[in-house]
């Protein structure tokens, strides 16, 4: 007697599948292992190629903390990531709600304009954005990093797609209950969209956390965010790999923690989107 489903893969195929997946996982994990391995080597051994770092040393972490204010960098990067993601979610939610729940003139054109902004490469809008920030006096500030990124076309697109399959009857019922469209948004739509909002939120927060190009333009006088701090260990006179890897290792931890906390929602959201 067997417990395998009829027509399921044979055990040979299953083992082969697991082997391939295991190898792929190793390939994905290896750079992260190497990052932490290098960061834990004795400073004189950072160029060594031995797979196991020995003896272990935290000198590179001490060096990184001495040369840069890593705690402040992580805090600033966290502020930028959270505010950018929050702003993009809010704008995305309101825009998607409008597109999905109402019919209004030029709706398609306006939606296409939103989509269109996704097609314009950042490099094309970079200079006008920079000039605008200079005029607003927002250069060298965290606000300068956040404000031009408060709207994400991706957020609008994704949430609109989710809202399109949201049953209109629920909105009608809420209206018959006497709820305003604003109340209906927060009491009916948002609770139903929670997995999608969590998945999108983490995606946007990680993108903002890893953003390097725009902060490098705006924050010229400091290394206020961690991605700029990483670059400060590279230069004309060679790269300082030890503290660079130590800072990169520290920069990965908050993102990893965020993923662990929100993992269930993310898997949920992707499974649901895939089933549609």
């Amino acid at each position, binding site marked *: 007697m067997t417990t395998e489903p009829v027509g399921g893969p044979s055990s040979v195929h299953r083992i082969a599948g697991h082997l391939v997946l295991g190898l792929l996982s190793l390939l994905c994990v290896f750079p992260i292992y190497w990052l932490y391995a290098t960061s834990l080597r004795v400073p004189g051994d950072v160029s060594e190629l031995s797979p196991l770092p020995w003896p272990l040393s935290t000198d590179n972490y001490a060096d990184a903390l001495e040369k840069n204010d890593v705690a402040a960098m992580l805090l600033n990067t966290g502020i930028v990531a959270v505010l950018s993601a929050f702003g993009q979610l809010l704008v995305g939610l309101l825009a998607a709600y409008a597109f999905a729940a109402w019919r209004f003139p030029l709706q398609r054109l306006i939606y296409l304009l939103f989509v269109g902004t996704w097609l314009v490469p950042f490099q094309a809008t970079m200079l006008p954005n920079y000039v605008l920030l200079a005029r607003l006096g927002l250069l060298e500030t965290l606000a300068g990093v956040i404000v031009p990124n408060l709207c994400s076309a991706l957020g609008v697109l994704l949430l609109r797609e989710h809202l399109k399959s949201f049953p209109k009857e629920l909105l009608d019922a809420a209206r018959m209950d006497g709820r305003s469209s604003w109340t209906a948004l927060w009491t009916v739509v948002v609770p139903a969209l929670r997995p999608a909002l969590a998945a999108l939120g983490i995606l946007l927060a990680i993108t903002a956390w890893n953003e390097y190009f725009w902060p490098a333009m705006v924050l010229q006088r400091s290394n206020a965010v961690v991605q700029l701090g990483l670059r*400060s260990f590279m230069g004309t006179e060679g790269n300082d790999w030890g503290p660079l890897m130590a800072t990169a290792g520290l920069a990965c931890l908050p993102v990893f923690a965020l993923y662990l906390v929100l993992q269930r929602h993310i898997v949920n959201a992707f499974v649901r989107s895939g089933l549609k």
Partner: protein
Amino acid sequence: MRRSLFAAGAAAMLALVTAACGLGSSDAGSEGNTGPVPELGADQRVSIVFESYNFGQAGAWTDTFNELIAAFEKEHPNISVTAQKPQGNSANPATDTISSLQSQLTAGSPPDVVQLGFSDLDFTVNQLGAKALDDLVGENAVQANFDGEEYPYAEAARKLGDWDGKTYGVPFVFSTPMLYYNKQLFSQAGLDPEQAPAKWSEVRDSAKAVAGRTGKDGVYVDCLTKAAKDWCFQSIVRSNGGRVISQDRSKLTFAEQPVVEVVSTMQDMVKGGAMPNLTQMQAVEAFARGDLGMIVESSAIQGTFLKGAGDEWELGAGAMPSFEGTQAVPTNSGAALFVFSADQAKQRAGWELIKFLTSERAYTTIASKIGYLPLRTGLVEDPDGLKSWAEQNPYLEPNLEQLGRLEPWVSMPGTSYLQIRDGMMEAVENVVFQGADAEATLRAEQGELSKLLPGGGR
């Protein structure tokens, strides 16, 4: 209706784009000073911005420069300096200097004093509008600064920031190409660890010995790729009597026989197993790790090698190798300080900062804390200056010795100077590391790149 909406949208976009592109372009290149800018009054407060790639690197670089800026502000209480690194996303902030300056000029707020590389000199003066220091403060003041209080600039370094007979930039930081080698690997290969190879033929033979007897790689010449730029390629070419561009800078000449010989010699080293096919970064890391016998590299990287060597192997250094019967011609990499401010008070304050940063005192601090070559070379004899530092630094001597034979790194002309430089180095890289035919490849590339010269190279 739909069409008119699109037309209105397109017009609005066009207006936005043109407005954005037009901003700030009026200032670049403006001259108009009729005499030296006035000295600052004792109670005249001025704020200036100083942009240097040294602020992009944490540790000794940023710390030393912050220390110098603080000392300057203490000495000049009426001038406050805001330091910044170039904008941009390159791993090496020194490669972002020009694009950073361009975008700030576009935004209408260029920094007042900027540290820029010598290979950008033509573009810096003729396109970006650096101010001629001779016009701002007078030729005598500029020359008096070179003469210094006690120790003058090395003769070869004085004119590196000059254009058409005027000084635009004061040379500031500086390095020459050196041959570094691993004494342990030399001993293991049966070579004299106290004797650096002086000729390219000796470099090739030593590299083959290291590769054959130790199993490590022989030599890497970090002058032959696009990533290396062309500063030390020019040095090797000049050492063989050639030039990559004619002396009047009107014609590219990197397909001529002396250059073809140089590139073929390097290709032979790769084909013969003396030189590994590595990227610049791989080679620097391999040498620091002790896996490479020799490397021709900028003296600026020496700190990385000393750190990598630690207690495990000993670093040796020699001057740039020469070809048979000729003397090597070293070129320099490095940067000078330029003034971009349009405001007279800021121009004067900028000049005060330049004088301070190139003073005996500043060079003593910079050389001892960062390791840069002091351009006031007499300081290495001064017991109160850098004498003890020089005695502890046995690699300094070949570097100083090369200064006497130095030729400037020639910048390519016109607005497409970077494409010309990069295109030439890509062709060299193709020949040396990919095995392309030297003469045909260089000739074809020279023909193409000549079209980018001002006037199409005619």
